[in-house]
């Protein structure tokens, strides 16, 4: 079968975050003695390891947490970094991959729901820039929303990238003929790739249908205090 015009058979690329800055999303959720510390930020994996301890000490001092948190935070960061590094040497599939990214997060008093498509192949993409523009366009005043959005995007990209590493490994093991086409069928996000063919084929146009507009429109809600409390209580309950 002849490979379609889209270059499926590109040579696999070493794993990295498909963004312009190779940053790792780190999520912390530590509980000691009933005190819960949740945080999410991006880390530069090329920083020296001493930076981890410095950062955790700084955070504990700033937030006036008990010092038992320092080691926990540092070890959590380090495990996630190690996980990231374990992927680094391996191959990642790099074919056509446009994936849907969903945003569903609550930062202080702002609730954000959004969905859009992202090109995994674009290694120059910048979630931070997207977040900046997002906040500016929607007039979000809370300065903490931007980093949260960027982090959510980055996290999903990271997940998809790791999945692609796994699937690249599978296809390498199977080692059958047209790796590209096989891969296209076996990859998890092949759904969207095929959708693309459907969407951008000669029958349809790039312009989205009107009925799909609601799905792809960002929703930004400003919550009052009571709603925030209710949501938090619900979250805690579901976690338990």
């Amino acid at each position, binding site marked *: 079968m002849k490979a379609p015009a889209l270059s499926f058979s590109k040579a696999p690329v070493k794993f990295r975050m498909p963004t312009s800055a190779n940053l790792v999303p780190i999520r912390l959720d530590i509980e000691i003695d009933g005190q819960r510390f949740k945080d999410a930020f991006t880390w530069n994996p090329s920083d020296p390891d001493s930076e981890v301890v410095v*950062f955790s000490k700084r955070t504990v001092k700033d937030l006036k947490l008990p010092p038992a948190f320092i080691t926990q935070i540092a070890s959590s960061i380090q495990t996630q970094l190690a996980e990231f590094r374990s992927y680094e040497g391996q191959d990642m599939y790099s074919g056509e991959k446009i994936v849907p990214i969903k945003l569903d997060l609550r930062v202080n008093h702002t609730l954000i729901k959004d969905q859009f498509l992202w090109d995994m192949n674009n290694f120059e993409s910048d979630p931070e820039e997207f977040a900046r523009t997002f906040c500016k366009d929607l007039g979000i005043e809370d300065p903490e929303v931007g980093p949260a959005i960027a982090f959510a995007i980055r996290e999903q990209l990271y997940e998809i990238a790791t999945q692609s590493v796994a699937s690249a490994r599978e296809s390498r093991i199977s080692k059958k003929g047209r790796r590209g086409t096989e891969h296209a069928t076996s990859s998890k996000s092949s759904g969207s790739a095929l959708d693309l063919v459907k969407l951008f084929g000669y029958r349809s146009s790039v312009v989205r249908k009107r009925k799909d507009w609601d799905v792809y429109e960002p929703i930004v809600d400003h919550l009052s205090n009571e709603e925030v409390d209710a949501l938090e209580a619900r979250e805690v309950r579901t976690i338990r």
Partner: protein
Amino acid sequence: MATTISPSPVTLQPPGPSTTEIEPDSETPSNPKQPQTQTPIKPDTPATATAVAIATPRPPDPPPSSDADIIHIPSYSRWFSWDNIHECEVRFLPEFFDSRSPSKNPKVYMHYRNSIVKQFREHQRQQAPSRKITFTDARKTLVGDVGSIRRVFDFLEAWGLINYSPSAQNKPLKWEDKDAKSSSSQGAEAKAAAAAAAAAAADSSAGPSKENSKVVCSGCKLVCSIACFACDKYDLTLCARCYVRGNYRVGVNSSDFRRVEISEDTKTDWTEKENLHLMEAILHYGDDWRRVAQYVGGRSDKECVAHFLKLPFGEEYLKHADSGEVDVKYNQMKDHVDAECRLESSGASFSSKRLCLTPLADASNPIMAQAAFLSALAGVDVAEAAAQAAVTSLSQVGLGASKEPQSSLAKITKLQEADVTPNGNTTGNALEGAFVEANSQLQKDELDVERAISRIAEVQMKEIQDKLVHFENLDMQMEKEWQQLEQMKNMLFVDQLTLLFHRSSAPKTDERMEQKSVRID
């Protein structure tokens, strides 16, 4: 936003306060857009081209005036401008300028820097008391990797562009702690006159220099102006800024330092008139330093107190006829009372009796406090006599305990009644009495036990005797029966014999019968 890097020669070393090597062209291209920085004296920028990145720049004098809404930055950070990047920024944070990573470019750096500074100033304007922003606050609002944000934040903090408080006196807590500690350590010296102690300590802690001469800080080699911190352990003298910034060696702890006031008297010497006023006021008002300060006029109450202590002839005013020795005792007892209390008590020991009692309440041991209280009430001699009597009686009680319990008990009670002294004695006697009682009890119990044992023995012996008697009776009965039996045997034999005789008297078988009877015999 064009990024221009200023072309001036390296001006990394911040200026010292008193050196005046002015290099006119080394002024940074300060844009007109610096409305928020102070414009103090000319920046003294020595043209030392040190390429070494200094970790913490040496702090100079703070800008003079301090209004509410003006943002303060130290004079060595005048290069800061919103639109430009200075050379020292390039030097300190090279990661943004070496185009190694595409996301770290000067534009991004400026965005981080400006937003952090803006955030700090916003914070400062809104919440005056807590003027610092933490790194965590900053990084939560910035998009990017936390490592580089932290570096920018540290850089800004080190150069005083954020979290900078305009005057070094804004560290009241630490300094006041030092003050209290040093003066209480002075109070612990068992000198009769607190003033003498204070004067001596002040002299010794001024270090190598006298009070009026300048003290040079061993950390930054600048003259210490307001106060300095001396560490005796390692023989260091640091100016206030170096101490606060932690600019000392690794092994030295911040608690090893002692604060030394220098500028108290050098700032404004006390005139004779003021001294006189002070003395009069103290005589009149005693320990009410507020009124003393009012009387003196122009001096705060703390200044009055401090100056009064430093006066060499203050001893005379502190020694009172009766309460001199009492003062000694009290000074010895309350090491841990803070400076105010001590000053009050020493300055106002004119009214001795009243104050005699108050410091004692602070003694940690309640029993000792009571004892001291009682002895204070009774007077020194009486307390001494009482203590001696208590000791002697205790020793006597110790001897008495080895005798017969009851007699010693009586003795102890007599001794108890004889003593009219504070508490420690009675507790000793009570112990002795208890001991003696216990002894007597023991002996009684022993006797009881003996008696019981003897009774048991008696009873058992009786039992045995009875048994013996019984057996004897039995024996006798047996004998009797035996005898009876014998008799009966004999009778039977006699009967048999007579019967045979009668038979033998018959005609034919007589002979045989006789033979038989002979044979039988």
